[in-house]
């Protein structure tokens, strides 16, 4: 293996690509959790997004419809979660788990006829620049539009939460729904919106897998990425920028350890496979150890059921 500079560029580019679904899903879930709702259905929403995106692509032959459709299906399935937890006041944890199980089952059923169908090539941007600039070319250029969006998203999320009025309302609702309600904020509506947004982002994350990253439908193709995204949100202590860092570390070590396995390092394979999880947790714990900041970022009412006094 030659460790020349352009190879490293390509490696970094592939690491970025592999962390996109994590960034998307985690950013969406972050907004949901910041409003005080714990949706454990990320994995389920992602897999529904993946199959509906792929199916729409096959049926309509239009990638734009497929992408938008995947987000829409994420919205629909999160609407079920929203209705159950916000209107019928069911337990967030149980409902979210049910959503994941439901999503995996439903996607397998819907996807039966789509197994083995080859995907369509997804257009990439600035492909000429990718080849012409060494090292930076493969890092910065030649990616799909979804990747650029994903890398902008944590910063947009951060700006939204910290600088905008709506972001303030979301944080307020997550801090104390009772106070927010007494201040005249419609807590249920805010939480519905955050849940649906989270659903859309998870749908998009799923579609990225089935349309762009590995363009095909495989049963259970999200392979636990939804759970990783959920864990990222918590270990990043609800900070969007740290979510991005965590996703990159996870993606990076996943790819690196694959290379190490291929080269045949004398380290047990099991340890290498476990490395991404271990390292991501260690790094995020280390960078988020300021207990004061954790307290300020943690949505105090997370997972608690809110109902309005009558």
């Amino acid at each position, binding site marked *: 293996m030659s460790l020349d500079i352009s190879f490293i560029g390509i490696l970094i580019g592939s690491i970025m690509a592999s962390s996109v679904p994590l960034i998307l899903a985690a950013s969406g879930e972050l907004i949901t959790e910041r409003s005080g709702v714990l949706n454990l259905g990320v994995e389920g929403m992602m897999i529904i997004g993946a199959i509906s995106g792929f199916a729409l692509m096959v049926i309509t032959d239009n990638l734009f419809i497929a992408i938008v459709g995947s987000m829409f299906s994420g919205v629909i399935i999160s609407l079920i979660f929203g209705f159950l937890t916000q209107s019928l006041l069911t337990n967030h944890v149980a409902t979210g788990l049910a959503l994941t199980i439901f999503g995996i089952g439903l996607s397998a059923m819907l996807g039966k006829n789509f197994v083995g169908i080859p995907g369509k090539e997804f257009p990439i941007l600035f492909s000429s620049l990718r080849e012409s600039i060494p090292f930076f070319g493969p890092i910065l250029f030649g990616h799909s539009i979804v990747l650029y969006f994903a890398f902008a998203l944590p910063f947009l999320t951060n700006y939204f939460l910290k600088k905008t*009025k709506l972001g303030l309302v979301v*944080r307020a609702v997550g801090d104390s729904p009772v*106070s927010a*309600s007494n201040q005249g904020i419609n807590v249920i509506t805010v939480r519905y919106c955050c849940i649906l947004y989270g659903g859309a982002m998870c749908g998009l994350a799923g579609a990225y897998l089935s349309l762009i990253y590995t363009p095909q439908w495989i049963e259970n193709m999200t392979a636990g990425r939804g759970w990783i995204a959920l864990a990222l949100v918590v270990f990043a202590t609800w900070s969007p920028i740290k979510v991005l860092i965590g996703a990159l570390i996870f993606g990076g070590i996943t790819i690196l350890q694959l290379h190490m396995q291929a080269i045949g390092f004398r380290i047990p394979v099991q340890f290498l496979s476990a490395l991404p999880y271990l390292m991501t947790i260690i790094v995020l714990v280390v960078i988020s150890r300021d207990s004061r900041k954790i*307290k300020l970022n*943690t949505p*105090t009412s997370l997972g608690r059921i809110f109902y309005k006094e009558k």
Partner: protein
Amino acid sequence: MATDLRISNISKIYPGCIANDNVSLQFKSGKIYALLGENGAGKSTLVKILSGVISPDNGEVFLNEKNLKLNSPLDAKKNKIGMVFQHFNLFETLSVFENLSIDATEDNKSLRVRINEIFKKYNFSIDLDVPVLNLSAGQKQKVEIIRCLLRSPKVLIMDEPTSVLTEQETEELFISLKKFCDEGILIIYITHKLKEVLSLCDEVAVMRKGKVVSVSQTQNEKVETLANKMVGQKLAKIKKKINISKNKDEIFKVKHLNFYSDDPFETNLVNLNFSVKKGECLGIAGISGNGQNELFQILSGEIITPDTSIIFRNKEIAKLNPKQRREYLMAFSPEDRISQAAVPELKIYENVALNNFKSSNFFEKGLVNERKIKEHSKKILSDFSVNTDNVELKSQFLSGGNLQKLILGRELITAPELLICYNPTWGLDVGAINYIHETLIKINDQEKSTILISTDTEELLKLSDRIAVIYKGKLSKIMPSEEVTPEKLGLLMGGGSID
């Protein structure tokens, strides 16, 4: 412009309880009105209706003869009714400014200007950019008040505002409230503290069991008359027979109690020495935050300090944990009933079992003997007149007074030789306070000792045989309580000296 608020025939019925029964009241600006009543009298329900949090089953609210439809807090806001809740309605993790800006219609810059104007006008000063969780209770309340003032309210409702304030903060609050009143804001002040009514308010409406039982000018009222109206029966006056006899045994003796902490929110304790005799009540006065918390925790064994000697019944117990100290027949009643003394989510009998002492047979071979615990709990409920006999009830549904009775009952049923309590009547109404005071006096009559750490000087003078004052972690000279006057105590509590 004068404001006239009229409540007409308001009723609100909850399953099993009539919270408001045909309540009619009238308020006019330029005066401060008190709404007085025991816990559960229906005051909070009424103000929740006025602030649009809940809607009444019946009745109407008129502001300047306009019929208000208060279906949500937004409606109250639009009609310029401001409300400061007893349990603050703030967002703890957001900054002060974010808390104030959340429902503002103007941009941040002009909002800051307006907030600073209010600061100047009323002599407030709070850092706008720190998170609310870093503020003291008094500061939090100011944030709530400022939030109301920003909307230039016609009516300002304060729900039990002093229950979390120090005396200094209470004084500041009263000065502000009088200013608001002079500026034409109609103030409705909800409380169960009689003295506050007399010193602050012009008119007082007393509520009992959901009904208004009297409306009168405060100048025609006295503490006793108001108390009787509030409770609905003549309250017995309690005064302890002070008993200091020099030749009684010292049952509890503390020497060289020092405590040092790096936490800026904790107070260091400097060389405390005191002792308690058999059958005696030692009162420890002080404004909250002067080391009482730390002292209580050291006496109960939650904090173990090196080099401190605590002798109890001729044994050294300074290194023992709370459970072991209980086995030596000490008992404790902490200040925070909900989080320290009891687990609110647990049922009554489960809370009783938490405090298992050696001689009990609540647990056999690691299993819970539910029948025994329940029998025992029933006895506590009836012996200490807790107003329920359902031991399966979750403790969080008990009112403050009943929960305190349960806690005291749980501690006392083991017949301890020494009871250490910290603000045992904090936030309780007159009836419950009376009961608890009677209980504490009874303990002393039975030749058992008590240490009463309290911020309530009246309570201390009523119950203690000897009193000391704690100020900035130091203990004053211990004085026989007949030599102590409220003025003397006030001076010592503020850091002065009397010699």
